[in-house]
Each structure stands twice: as structure tokens, then as C-alpha cells.
């Protein structure tokens, strides 16, 4: 019996397995392997968690392609056919299709708890304090607060931190937040999710305050964040949007757990201290 079944049973099992594999859905995702709080290859980022929620809703397994999110990221990953989805990117990014935004965050001031709070780019204290900002690099543009400071003639007391940093270290952009704790700068102006996450992890935890005005001349300080897909992938776009809408509470809880400062309709759920 056992031996009689052997060949046919294996064949049957293989058939069943191939049917299961063939029908098992795969969600191919491109992400940065070393950029918390967004993502890393240990799946510790909030984008990793949100992708899991979406994959659960789509009954799909997640297959990652890891790629540092630098110049050429979109071209080398999504556009090169390595994946179907980039979980976190700015809404309206050129050359791709983006979903309905699922949260909006803001640039923030990051200060030590004992320091005076700064709420505005027009705060006269910014002319005296040592301010840290991220340097984007070689395309002639920097983060909007850097342009806002430059416009106000605040430059002598501004310290630049490469957004790229030393990629051999964990989460290179986090150096800017750590510099506040270390006293290397009096205040950092950083993108909210990075500041919220790493600010909460400093001892003592840092104060995170949204930048005002929210639009400084041509430079917005708040950005809607969406997922990116290929323009022709309209059906997946709608599925992802539906999944986020359906699991909205879980998505919000994840963003909240990561201390993402939000300036959207859900902000009351998630504003950090």
C-alpha cells in the first residue's frame, strides 16, 4: 500500500503544491534595508508593518527587494520591474502612479526638553541657536526648511547633515536627531517621522514641534505620503487603497506606535508629545 501509493502520492502532492504556489499571491515590494523608522531588512519599520497589513488584506505573501533609497531608487527598482509597490513615497512623485495618500506629516523642530520650544521659522531664536538640517546633495535643492532658513539669512549657524550619511551605520539620517541629544546642535529641523521615532528613543526623549508656517513661499513643509506603483498597474492601486481604507484603524495604530507626527484628519490620534 505504502509503496504502491508512493509514486502516485508524490505526484499528487506536487500537483497540489504547484496549484497552491501558482495561486498564492505575492506582493513584490521595494524598500530601503537600512532606514528606520521607515523600513529595514529586519522588517522593523512602520512601512514594513503597513505592508504586512495590506498583504494580509490581499491574502498575499510579501517578497522584498532591498535597495537604498537614493538617487535612482525608483528607476532601479519599480521601473526596472523588480517590484510592484514602493510603500512610502511622496504623493505625486513623477514617473510613477501614487495611491491616495494614507497620511500627511510635516517638518518639525526637534529640541531638548529643557530648551525653549520653537514653533515658527520666524522665531528670532533661530538666528542665534545652532540649527541642524539635512543636506540632500547635488541637485541644487535641499530640504524645504533649509531653503526657508536661507531665505531668512540664517546660514552662519546652520549645520548640514548629509541625508545619505555613512551607509555602513544604522539608519544614517538619524544622526541629525542624535546630534540634538549630544548637544552638537541646539535644534534640528527634520522630517516628522524620522524625528518622532528617534526623538522618542533619546534619553530624555526630545520635543517634536511642527514647523510653521506650513508653506514657506514655494516650499511646503507638509507632504502627503502615498504608495507608488507603475502607472499601468491601476488594479493594484485600487486594491491597496481599499485595503488601507478597510484596515485604517490598524494603519493609524502603527503610525501612532512609531510616533509619526501627523497633520491630517487623523492627527489627533497620533500627535506625539
Amino acid at each position, binding site marked *: 500500500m505504502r509503496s504502491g501509493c508512493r509514486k502516485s502520492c508524490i505526484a499528487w502532492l506536487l500537483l497540489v503544491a504547484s496549484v497552491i504556489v501558482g495561486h498564492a499571491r505575492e506582493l513584490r515590494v521595494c524598500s*530601503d534595508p537600512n*532606514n528606520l523608522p*521607515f523600513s529595514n531588512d529586519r522588517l522593523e519599520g512602520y512601512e514594513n508593518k503597513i505592508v504586512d497589513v495590506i498583504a494580509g488584506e490581499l491574502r498575499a505573501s510579501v517578497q522584498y527587494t532591498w535597495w*537604498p*533609497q*537614493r*538617487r*535612482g*531608487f525608483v*528607476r*532601479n527598482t519599480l*521601473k526596472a520591474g523588480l517590484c510592484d509597490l514602493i510603500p*512610502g*513615497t*511622496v*504623493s*505625486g*512623485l*513623477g514617473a510613477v502612479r501614487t495611491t491616495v495618500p494614507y497620511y500627511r506629516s510635516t517638518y518639525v523642530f526637534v529640541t531638548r526638553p529643557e530648551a525653549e520650544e520653537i514653533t515658527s521659522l520666524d522665531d528670532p531664536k533661530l538666528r542665534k541657536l545652532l540649527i541642524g538640517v*539635512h*543636506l*540632500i*546633495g*547635488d*541637485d*541644487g*535643492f*535641499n*530640504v*524645504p526648511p533649509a*531653503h526657508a532658513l*536661507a*531665505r*531668512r*539669512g540664517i*546660514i*552662519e549657524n*546652520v*549645520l*548640514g547633515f*548629509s*541625508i*545619505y550619511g555613512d551607509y555602513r551605520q544604522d539608519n*544614517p*539620517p538619524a544622526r541629525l536627531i542624535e546630534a540634538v541629544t549630544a548637544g552638537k546642535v541646539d535644534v534640528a529641523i527634520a*522630517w516628522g*517621522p*524620522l524625528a518622532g521615532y528617534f526623538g522618542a528613543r533619546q534619553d530624555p526623549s526630545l520635543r517634536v514641534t511642527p514647523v510653521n508656517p506650513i508653506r514657506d*513661499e*514655494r*516650499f*511646503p513643509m507638509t*507632504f502627503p*505620503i502615498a504608495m507608488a506603483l507603475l502607472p499601468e498597474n491601476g488594479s493594484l492601486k485600487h486594491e491597496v487603497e481599499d485595503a488601507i481604507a478597510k484596515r485604517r484603524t490598524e494603519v493609524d495604530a502603527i503610525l501612532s506606535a512609531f510616533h509619526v507626527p501627523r497633520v491630517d484628519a487623523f492627527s489627533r490620534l497620533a500627535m506625539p508629545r
Partner: protein
Amino acid sequence: MSFSRLIVALVSSLVGSASSQPSLPRAPQTAAPNENGEWAMPAKNFASTRFSSLDEINVDNAKNLQVAFTFSTGVNKGQEAAPLVVGNTMYIVSPYPNILYALDLSQAGAPMKWKYEPKPEPASQGVACCDVVNRGAAYSNGRIYFNTLDGNAIAVDASTGKEVWRTKLGDINRGETVTMAPLVVKDKVLVGNSGGEYGVRGWLVALDAGTGRQVWKAYSTGPDRDVLIGPEFKPYYDSDKGKDLGVSTWPPNAWEQGGGTVWGWISYDPDLNLIYYGTANPGPWNHEQRPGDNKWTAGIFARDADTGQARWFYQFTPHDVHDWDGINEIILLDMEWKGQQRKVLARPERNGYLYVLDRTTGEVLSAEPFAYTNSTHGVDLKTGRLQINPEKQPKLNQTVRDICPTAPGAKDWNPSAYSERTGLIYIPHNNMCMDVQTMDANYIAGTPYVGANVKMKAGPGGNRGEFSAWDVQNARKRWSIKENFPVWSGAVATAGNVVFYGTMEGWFKAVNAETGDVLWQFKTASGIIGQPITYKGPDGHQYVAVLSGVGGWSGAIVSGDLDPRDGTAALGFVNAMADLKDVTTKGGTLYAFRLP
């Protein structure tokens, strides 16, 4: 100099003066002394002619040129430097990490004598706008002077390779880097900064050649006292007259990060004791934020070489909106103009015009286009003002197509040569146009921001580059060679009536100085964006040398591994250079050629 070499130099200079027509423009003798077979500064001489009286290599035998020796710089980034040759030694400075090499030309194969490693801060790589280039060193009085990307000026003993002094000038935390080659004038080393993309404030400093201590510093923006404008300042045009124009032609405080960096070339007239140099474009890039002429950016200063006090200024591009750095080479010539002998300077400018200025006064004698341009309508010689075509200015919330020339201009930093045998300036340049779109949302390393969308492309004719011979006295083009890619190398002219330049595909070419006929070409390992030189080796024979290794702003697609499909990378230049990756790869090799 040995006695025999002195004789050779004297004879060649005599031959030179006997055979050239007296009516052709000539560099002032004090600024371009007799040939000694050496190449001690990137521009060859203070007049910046990049002309050598050596004539062993001529139009008849250039076809026989062959490789004499090669040397790897060990750095596969854009090689923009000119090698130097002094005595029996060749000096080469590499891109970041800016290693200085000395090669022994008296030995077979020119082995390395020593190398000096300045170890610049690694972070400076991320600050440099357009590849981590260095444009060369300068020799003076037993020392090699050069600058590092992280903003240090360094003096090294030319025989031992030991550091003599090092002065930190720039702050990379503020986006300040240094990429230019210094010029040594008498006992001073002149150095300027780079980094206009980051809104730094431009300056030129004079350092004491002996100690490296700062003697004077002239800013390109701000109050007169910072710019070293005093009673001696007598600009030719009314638009440059007035108090503190470096402040009042800007919105409040905008001059503080106004750009006007000094990353190009300096010339020197010993008779007038004046230095001449250009200032880069104004910052920040968004011109709506800085109404006004934005003095003293995108123009040229004449300054007293001892005190730095400004004598005159002329602005090529007031209120620049195109990123047209006014830093190109300045060729000093004495020439007849409308029946009068004039001391002039010639400048092939980023905006596409070849300017001839009276170098004692700053008056524009002529400004004729050497490349296709539609964004301006020439220069009003009464006011000296560039005439803008409003239809071809980048606008907020609007796409403007076919703006010619592009941000790198009709011609970028890479220097021309002038032959006193032909009266022609040999101009390596671009032929490109661009579309500028409104700001785009962008996202990098988890961080959103906005940027301009600039796309560059070939200009009329479909060729992106050109090598033109310009008749300076008659202000017209004599001949030109079309090149597929922008010509991003320098040029050298010789008394043998052979002119040399390189292409981004890697061809090193010798052309007939009178006709532009290609006499010889050699395919080097990588694209050429360096400055060729020629010298007399210890064996008494003429050599031609050039660094091969593509990169720079135009070649960053190869040296920086940029994605050809990301058309907006490297300020939009990548869009026009996507196919460069198909024809060349990174490199960093010196080639020296001679006749068999």
C-alpha cells in the same frame, strides 16, 4: 634651466616672433614669457594662452604620435586637472581624495618619485555639486600649491613631497568646497571657493606663499568693505557705480548666501599689476527670491594683485537665472582695435558670447555669439548690458521649452587656447538646449522635498559639442568641428600649428590649427575632460600629455553611476548624456605622447 635649454628657448622664441604676422593679437610679453619647455601652471602663463612655442610636433608629423608612458591616478572620477611639468618632474593632482603625484621624467616609464596624500574629509564628496573634481596645481619657487575638495589650500615641497603648510579655507558644513587650481602671483597664492548650489557666499583669498597666512579676502557679495571696493574702483558702466551694490542689488540679507563663488580661472597682467577672475552665478537658484542685479555675481573683477582692491567690474549676466557661472578662462592679449592698440582680454562666456574687453577699463569692445543662443539678443555696447529674451526665461508654474544654451552654458569651465601664430582662439564648447519645468515633488532616503525639473538635449544640428576656432580680431568663427558629446576638455595650441583636445568618448585629437583638419587621434581608456599640456622632456623632445577619465558635471552619469533614465539627475544634464554610458567607462589615467 640648463644652458642648452636656454639656447633652445631663445631660438624658439626668436623663430616664433619672426614667423608670426605682426598684426595678430599677442599676449603681453610679461604675462607670457619666452618658452622654457615647462608647464608650471594650468594656463601655461599669466596671460592664460595655453600656447607653447614648441614645434617639434607639427602638422606633417603629428600623425606619427605614439604613447610614451601612462600613469594611473588610482581614482576613477572625473579628471579635470592639467598635469604640470617643472624640470624633470611631472606633477598630477587627482580628483578626491586629491592625491598629488610626482613622476620622474628622466627615468624610463616616468616612475613615481613620491606621492602626497592630503586625506580630505570624506563628507566633502557629498557636498561637491558636480563630481569630486580638481582642476590642477600650480608650481612656484620650489613648491607645488593645490587645493583639496574639503577646502584646504596646501603647499608641498616640490622636490620631497613634504607638506610645507596647510590652510583651511572652506567649510563643507556650509557647502563650501574648493575645486579650482590656485594661481601664484609674486608672493601670493590666490584661491577661491566652490559650492554655489548650497548658497555659500563666494570669495577669493590671497595667501602668503611662504606661510599660508591670509593676506586679503575679497567677497563677491555684500558691502563694499567686504568686496574690497574702495576709491580705486572705477567701473566702466553706470550700472556698476554706487555704494554697496553688493547689498542693494539683493533682497535684504540675500547677499549673505548669494553665491558668486570663485571656482574658475585667474589671469594676471604684471604691467598693470592686475588680476582678473570671474564670479559664479548668484544663489539660491530660485531667481524669484532674489530680484535685482545680484552684484557682484556672474561677472569679472579686475583687482590690484597686492591689495586685492577692486579696479573695475563688469557683469556678463546680471540677475542670472540660468546658472551661468562667469568663471571661464580669461585670455590677455594686446591687439589693434579700430586702428588703436588696445590691451584687451578675451572671454568665451557661459552665456554664449565671446567678449573682448579693454582690460584697463572694463569696456566691452565686442561680444559676438560663438554658439547657438536664443535666450538673449546680444550685448548693448552702450550700457554693456546683456539683452534678455523674456520668452526663454524659466518661469514659475510654467514649462519653458528649448532654452538655449543650458545651465552649463554655451561653454563651461574647460579652457580655450590662443595661438599667436594663427590669431585664433580654440574653444571647446557645448551645443545644447533645455526644457525647464516647474518644481516637482521629490523623495529621497525617506525625506520629501521639491526641486526643479530641468531636461537638457542637443541643440540645433543634433551635436552636443563643438570645437571652434575663433578669429579674435575679426570677431567671427573661422572653423569648427562638431562633436557628438559636449567638449568638456581643455585645449592647447602649439607653434607647430597643432591644436590638441579630447572628447568625452575618449578620443585625444590633434588638429590643424589653420583648418581644423584632424591630423591624428588616439582612443584613451576613458572619456577626456582634462586639460592637455605640452612640454619638452629631459630627452629634449616635445611631449603632449593629458588625463583621461570621464566625469565632471557632464560626465557624472558615468563616474557617479547615475541612472540614465533619471533625466533630472545632475541638474538635468543626465537626460542629455544617457548614451555616454554606452561609449565609455570610468577611468583615471595620464597619457603622454611623443614622436617616435
